[in-house]
């Protein structure tokens, strides 16, 4: 069955028409189809394909649109005509993508924008070192988010950076605030005169956030990557960053957060601090305070304590202590929670932030001891099977085990949500301790995800009460808005404390009573 349509004096370019022809040809039941301008050449083509009758062929001119459809039935022809009408009416949607500046190589990026001075690199580890070196060679300071970089590669990058006086933050550096710009995972905090350098991501986030809550402000917050203070690297970036903060007129007070450095690195840092005319506060999480005794460095045990010292030095006084609850209220809270528990004994700390997990573990270990973890300091308490919690357990769910092939739980909270439900259904679980990290880079609604998980978990607790305690690392100016997030957690029946240290301390007080 052949159907012809002639539209007189209707011009379309041949490409459009070939496209229409191929659309028609794709309809099942259409044996042959062509939509063409009626030039002699085209008419011949259509005649020889058997889709234009001799009689009609004599009536068309080069300015006419000629449609020929050969199909198995009238229904198919009707469908083809309908399809064609849609094609003619179809206005091409053009997506304006011009606001995004995208290129394929670093060289192309350098050509694209004059004066590039900073690079964020988050490539798979085996490719990241070479690309990072390209950025450094182009005079850019670098935040290297990637992990799985070898010690040799890290040294090569940092040696080049030190030689050329460039920041080489990382590998495995998640957070920095430079000139007020949040880079990687970072919060929106007040500008001020406190300069920070950290060998940890969420440690730096927690410190900047608490400083902000205490009314202080940040000049610069620099990262070094988790391995910088190990013997193999020797604190190269820590020393460079301290120099930069020492020479920065905006910075009046300097803060350091890190796990304890290697001995010889500690010596270098303390020597460096001696040369700095500004007060320096250090929080070496889990480090022996005697390490810095008798030096100019002010040592603190928790990130919260470090923030308080820094703000005191920065402003001359501390106007708030961040205590949400009085001692009496806290006692009441502990009493009330303990009374609701029915013989359950253990804590499960489920963290998305690595340093927050570490800090929580330290605080709990000091108060109740014997904390099992996937990041345990003492091998005896390392979990053999990370999937199964033992007694009191604190998990860093951003650790390699969980992120292998999965997004980090600060970006995608699903894995932690599942674990919350799993721990809640364990009849031994008394307390579930959580963090909730806001800021750029993080999930758009982490508290919403936690609340949903806790509500589902409560259905699995079969009338048992479980105490949920959380802290939120974030500010009012963060995209997720601190107060909104706190509200969501409270509505789900979660006790919310202003800092991770306070949350862990409250959990410890409850555990001590069980």
């Amino acid at each position, binding site marked *: 069955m052949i159907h012809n349509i002639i539209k007189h004096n209707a011009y379309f370019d041949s490409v459009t028409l*070939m496209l229409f022809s191929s659309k028609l040809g794709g309809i099942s039941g259409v044996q*042959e189809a062509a939509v063409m301008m009626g030039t002699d050449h085209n008419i011949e083509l259509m005649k020889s394909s058997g889709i234009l009758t001799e009689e009609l062929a004599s009536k068309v001119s080069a300015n006419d649109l000629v449609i020929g459809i050969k199909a198995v039935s009238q229904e198919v022809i009707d469908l083809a005509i309908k399809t064609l009408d849609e094609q003619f009416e179809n206005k091409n949607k053009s997506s304006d993508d011009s606001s995004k500046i995208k290129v394929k*190589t670093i060289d192309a990026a350098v050509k694209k*924008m*004059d004066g590039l001075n900073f690079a964020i690199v988050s490539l798979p580890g085996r490719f990241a070192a070479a690309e990072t070196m390209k950025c450094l060679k182009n005079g*850019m300071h670098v935040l290297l988010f990637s992990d799985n970089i070898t010690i040799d590669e890290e040294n090569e990058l940092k040696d080049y950076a030190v030689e050329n*006086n460039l920041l080489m933050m990382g590998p495995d550096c998640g957070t920095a605030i430079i000139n007020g710009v949040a880079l990687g995972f970072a919060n929106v905090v007040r500008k001020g005169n406190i300069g920070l350098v950290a060998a940890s991501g969420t440690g730096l986030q927690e410190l900047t956030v608490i400083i902000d809550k205490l009314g202080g402000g940040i000049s610069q917050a620099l990262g070094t990557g988790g391995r910088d203070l190990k013997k193999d690297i020797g604190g190269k970036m820590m020393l460079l960053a301290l120099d930069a903060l020492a*020479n920065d007129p905006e910075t009046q007070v300097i803060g350091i957060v890190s796990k304890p450095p290697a001995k010889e690195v500690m010596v270098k840092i303390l020597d460096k601090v001696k040369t700095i005319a500004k007060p320096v506060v250090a929080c070496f999480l889990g480090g022996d305070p005697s390490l810095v005794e008798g030096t100019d460095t002010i040592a603190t045990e928790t990130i919260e304590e470090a923030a308080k010292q820094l703000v005191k030095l920065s402003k001359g006084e501390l106007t708030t202590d961040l205590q949400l609850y009085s001692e009496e209220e806290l006692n009441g809270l502990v009493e009330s929670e303990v009374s609701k528990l029915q013989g359950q004994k253990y804590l499960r700390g489920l963290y998305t932030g690595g340093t927050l997990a570490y800090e929580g573990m330290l605080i709990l270990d000091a108060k109740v001891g014997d904390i099992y973890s996937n990041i345990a300091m003492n091998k005896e308490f390392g979990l053999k099977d990370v999937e199964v919690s033992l007694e009191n357990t604190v998990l860093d769910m951003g650790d390699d085990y969980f992120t292998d092939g999965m997004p980090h739980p600060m*970006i995608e909270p699903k894995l932690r949500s599942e674990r919350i439900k799993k721990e809640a259904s364990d009849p031994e679980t008394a307390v579930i301790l959580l963090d909730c990290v806001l800021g750029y880079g993080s999930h758009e609604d982490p508290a919403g995800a936690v609340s949903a998980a806790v509500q589902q978990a409560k259905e699995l607790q079969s009338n048992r009460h479980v105490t949920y305690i959380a802290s939120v690392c974030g500010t009012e100016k963060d995209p997720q808005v601190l107060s909104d997030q706190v509200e969501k957690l409270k509505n789900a029946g979660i006790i919310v404390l202003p800092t991770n240290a306070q949350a862990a301390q409250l959990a410890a007080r409850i555990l001590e009573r069980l």
Partner: protein
Amino acid sequence: MSKVNELFNQSLKVTNVGLETFYQTVVEQNVSAVHVEWRPVAGGNARLAALLAKLNTIEIEEANKKAFDTMNNAEPVLTDIKFAYEVIEGMDKYTIGHAGPPLAWDDMCGPLQGAILGAIMYEGLSNSLEESEELVKSGKIKFRNNHSMGAVGPMTGMVTYSMPLWEVTNTSYGNKAYCAFNEGLGKVMRFGANGHEVIERLKWLETSLGPAMKKALAVSGPISLKVIVAKALAMGDEMHQRNTGASSLFVREIMKYLVQVVEDKAELLKITEFVTGNDQFFLNIAMATGKAICDPVKNIPNSTVVTTLSRNGTNFGIKISALGDQWFEAPVNQPKGLYFPGYSEEDANPDIGDSAIVETFGIGGFAMGSAPAVVRFVGASSVDEAIAYSKEMQDICVGLSPHFVIPTMNFVGTATAIDVRKVVETGSTPVINTGMAHKKPGIGQVGAGIVRAPLDCFIKSLEAFGDKYSQ
């Protein structure tokens, strides 16, 4: 002041390499940023990545800059019509020039064999296709690749003894390049057709249009082709798939001379109909222009710039500056595009022709942004997509043309001087706009589309360059 402290006093300008969320994060904070859609260097091939790192030298950069400048300094002008026997060394009736890198008869695709059989008849050496084939089998026919003769030809690219050729002279360097006349659409020798009317038309080109054009050019004097190419880009041509503007401009230029030199009114009408009736008339002139621009770029020591892109229907061949006339080949790809009624992808021959010489100097697929009308050959429908191709080509080129600009892209120059290193690094190969021939000899054109050059020939050239460079 130390560089870190300098940074504290500057506005951040960020490049993000990896997760796009970090790019969005800084852009949300009103920071200027470029996102690098990074892919592993050389597809993650460590050996090639190491080679590329070794070839990241100032010496090569400078050599490539020289190659880029040589391309831009070219002044191509249309000077004359010459017969192949006049200008091609060693040309005789038994010599047949074809497109692409050299290959043996048995390795040739259908259309190329079909065109050769027809060309033998055109030269009067045989009276039938069968006789032609016997001549080929007897070994009397000598095949030469056009590029080795200073010439280029579209699709099968036949260049034989009696054919009139456009002569383009690059006055900056004094070199000349040649290309035969465009035969029009439908059943034509360049698509492998070889029937009676095909040969008749070629004879007419030889005896009427060729000599008339020669006389007209003698009166007009040299015609600047750089001007025509630049103007046509502003008229929506990219001069490979679409030559509507360029052909019109050329005809406007030449007609007043043609009418002076052709006495016979009936013949003048025939000539006028022919040159005004073929949108692709200018393509062959654009190709000779490309050859004239690219030839002086050859043999610049240490330069990794591509001087030839060409296909013979079986293999894709490229040449790079430092390695002169050495071919690097890989099997050609199948073009993707739209088909004339009655034909489908099954009928199409793989990629063929010297016409990719236009992409070699930055027009054709590289200038697709200036010709939104042709982007739909890829089955896409937006102008953005055409522009995206032109932008992508910037990533593999040394720089942007100062002469040839794309109006739809805010008059940015076309990407010019392909750097083999960048092709291998990004895995992004030149995009070529092309016609499609039927895979059987004697049938002709079945559609048009776009095709990518195969990555392998670029890898081979880079490896050969690396061997030479390290010595």
